């Protein structure tokens, strides 16, 4: 077939399948934090990418410390934890001084968070320099896993995949199996009523926002394995993040998962058969068409309007 042997084609199908899955998990990690903030709270957080950058810089810095103290092999665990905590803390603070004053004005939040993203970018630039930096990866994360001599499964891809699964599971447990999650969902469904039964809705908002930011921090930490970190790294991810959340239906985590999977597979397959840019364009066309027919996204929340 086209001058390639069956074995070649088999190998490519396996690797291509993996690259689709890998892209799916990357998109999912990007979008999860946003899905919580945008989906649950209706806040359009344009600074979401910068919270990822916080996680990424944290990882880079910790990798430097790790390199000098010789624990490069397992620093990533700490890096992810600290990235989460740091992004969570900054998110908590930002909600307190800015976001909470703007809940009733969604368009103003958009502008305010965009401004915030510019401020954060300049802070990164002033403190870490304008040049892109990379985290020093542990030896075991480099290279590929080879089930057969001709198939290469990138180990960093597997790592991001496992992490995405863990985070998704964590978010699910938090939202649907914990008291906190219950309060969050109650607040989303009916703020006044939730307040009336004694839920501190202001606090719920703050923690929800901070949690979304914290997850962005984890995503940022994970992305240091596939890309570099610079002051404007966040802007590379923000558009894709919004695309996934909007396409999935804002209020639904299942929707976010389904949408990330759909977009990733479509893009991955189309990019293989067309050129890279055309693959992307075609994917966007499909998304636009579907959104025209289903403006509320794939999985609309069944709320009484």
């Amino acid at each position: 077939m086209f001058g390639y042997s069956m074995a070649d084609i088999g190998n490519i199908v396996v690797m291509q399948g993996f690259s689709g899955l890998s892209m799916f998990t990357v998109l999912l990690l990007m979008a999860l934090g946003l899905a919580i903030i945008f989906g649950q709270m209706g806040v359009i957080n344009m600074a979401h990418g910068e919270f990822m950058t916080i996680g990424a810089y944290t990882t880079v810095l910790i990798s430097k410390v790790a390199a000098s103290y010789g624990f490069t092999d397992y620093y990533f665990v700490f890096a992810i934890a600290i990235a989460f905590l740091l992004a969570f803390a900054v998110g908590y603070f930002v909600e307190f001084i800015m976001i909470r004053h703007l809940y009733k004005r969604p368009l103003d939040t958009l502008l305010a968070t965009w401004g915030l993203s510019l401020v954060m970018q300049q802070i990164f630039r002033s403190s870490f320099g304008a040049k892109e930096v990379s985290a020093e990866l542990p030896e075991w994360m480099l290279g590929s896993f080879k089930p057969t001599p001709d198939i290469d499964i990138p180990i960093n891809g597997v790592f991001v995949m496992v992490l995405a699964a863990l985070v998704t599971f964590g978010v699910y447990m938090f939202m649907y199996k914990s008291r906190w999650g219950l309060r969050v969902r109650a607040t989303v469904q009916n703020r006044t009523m939730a307040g009336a039964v004694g839920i501190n809705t202001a606090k719920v908002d703050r923690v929800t926002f901070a949690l979304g930011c914290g997850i962005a921090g984890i995503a940022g930490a994970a992305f240091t394995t596939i890309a570099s970190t610079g002051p404007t790294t966040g802007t590379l991810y923000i558009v894709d993040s919004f695309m996934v959340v909007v396409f999935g239906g804002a209020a639904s985590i299942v929707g976010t998962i389904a949408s990330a999977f759909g977009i990733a597979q479509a893009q991955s397959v189309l990019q293989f058969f067309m050129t890279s840019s055309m693959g992307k364009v075609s994917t966007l066309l499909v998304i636009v068409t579907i959104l025209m027919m289903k403006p509320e996204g794939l999985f609309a929340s069944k709320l009484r309007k």
Partner: protein
Amino acid sequence: MSTLNRRGFIKGAMLGAMMAAGLVTGHAFAADYPTAKVNTTGLAVTDTTVKVGILHSATGTMAISETGSIQAEKLAIEQINAMGGILGRKIEVIQEDGASDWPTFAEKAKKLLEKDKVASVMGCWTSASRKAALPVFEKDNGLLFYPTFYEGLEQSKNVFYTGQEATQQILAGLDWIAKEKKAKTFYLIGSDYIWPRTSMKIARKHIEQHLHGTVVGEEYIALGDTQFGSVINKIKLKKPDVIYAAVVGGSNVAWFKQLNAAGLNSSKQTMLTISVTEDEVLGIGGENLAGFYSAMKYFQSQDNPENKKFVEAFKKRWGKDAVIGDVTQAAYLGPWLYKAAVERAGSFDVDKVQAALPGYTFKDAPEGPVTVEANHHLTTKLRIGQWGKDGQAKVVYTSDYIKPDPFPKGYQ
């Protein structure tokens, strides 16, 4: 005078002598070139100073790349001032921030030329910023020294291009890799904008017509895209002898990291890139690049005395961790070329300066001697560097001098 004691008298005399000496060395030199004579067009040139603009992005996405250029230009200017300046006049820098926004470049160029009346400008980095500022330089008859290697297809009497144009960077590199690696099949990949597209067009023509090779794939990645899985699989299926790459920015890092993770490292795949300098290696990481080749006119590791002096001075000024890429070195040439041009012209007038520079050979350039041609580009050599894990390249090939040809016949 009667109260003046002996010691006081000697002090006073020495002071007077020193002042006189100052007049002789500093002012007399400038006095050979009276301001009224060397500046007939109202530029910001006084008896003691000349204003020069620096116009790069210190903020925004492009700050990543342009910071090195700003540092190199400032270093060159400081060194020139330490030597007494240009025609006895110290250079005063006026720095403006293009902020990675092309219209801003035009606006700031206008401010520098019309309000500050700078005698020349070191600046611009991307082609887009140069194209935006160019009409201003042409209208106000300014002088721009532009440091980046770029796609060619441009020539203006108001611009000197201190980087390489596309054919200088591409042709000799392809010739080398075709001969050295007996390469027949090529996979071209670049970011999706004018420079990679023009470069790949030239590369494809050269591969097909002169090297009698085949281009098995040509691919452009949206700027900022970080997902290369599908492209890498395509490359694995096509198995090209050489990947010829011009991926830039954040994508560049993702590209090399994912290539390595997918098992395509330098032991399995030959790659020649025209978009990786020492600056990019910082982000990509030496371990992801080790063994791949870059085609540039300058590498920091070059072993000539001029370069050693330059690298030492640069690190002394900007920190020991500073790295110097191709464009940074080209930016360093700007102020020196300007100084030479003014001295050759004996005047700061733009028309005289730009007429005086072609034909000049700058012998002390860190990259080795370069000559300014009538088309305002430089005749330079091309070098192929092989990257090591430490983020430095070993120069494995140096071409003969290549004349610039911004409008290559048969390649458009």
